[in-house]
């Protein structure tokens, strides 16, 4: 029984396309996150949601739009994909916003833009 799951695991697409990544957690957590990990393994926060509300938006281009239909799901839609968007995108969750030190990560979605 997976705690934080993401789909798809791999995504290969061309520049200019629009794509979505989905995340689900069955931990009962209130807070969910999207991270981007670049080719040098640097992991950086993109967005944070608490109970469907956007808490953090870390100067991410408008082409990225997160959406949380309920507190167990957080999706990421990317418009007009660019080469620089190629990275591994991780979803994570924590019990509450105040428990950011206790985050559990999904397996990642490896996005390749050609």
């Amino acid at each position, binding site marked *: 029984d997976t705690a934080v799951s993401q789909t798809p695991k791999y995504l290969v697409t061309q520049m200019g396309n629009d794509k979505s990544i989905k995340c689900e957690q069955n931990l009962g957590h209130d807070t969910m996150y999207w991270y981007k990990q670049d080719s040098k*393994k640097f992991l950086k926060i993109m967005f944070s949601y608490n109970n469907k509300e956007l808490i953090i938006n*870390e100067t991410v281009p408008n082409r990225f739009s997160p959406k949380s239909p309920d507190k167990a799901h957080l999706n990421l839609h990317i418009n007009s994909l660019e080469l620089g968007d190629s990275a591994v995108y*991780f979803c994570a969750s924590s019990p509450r916003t105040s428990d*950011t030190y206790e985050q559990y990560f999904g397996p990642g979605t490896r996005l390749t833009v050609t």
Partner: protein
Amino acid sequence: QKEVEQDPGPLSVPEGAIVSLNCTYSNSAFQYFMWYRQYSRKGPELLMYTYSSGNKEDGRFTAQVDKSSKYISLFIRDSQPSDSATYLCAMRFVRGTGFQKLVFGTGTRLLVSP
């Protein structure tokens, strides 16, 4: 200068060795210090978190924090080939009420040979 500095390695050790992994940071506002382990093509896995200066032990792992020097360490005793992974340190940044995020180091790749 990055807020969190971590030697990327790789760090190669023989099985049974004691491993020391380190991070330095510049922002004295960081609270909570975490260590994550990331196997190749997997999501980061939380190993330990600490709040105050001092040591925290969990099995073969010991996390050490020295806030005065802005230096944290993770020690692994009796290292095993299964410990081969990238180890990421992370620190919690808090601003005002409601804004918290993790800032990650770039990770140290550890290779434990049989």
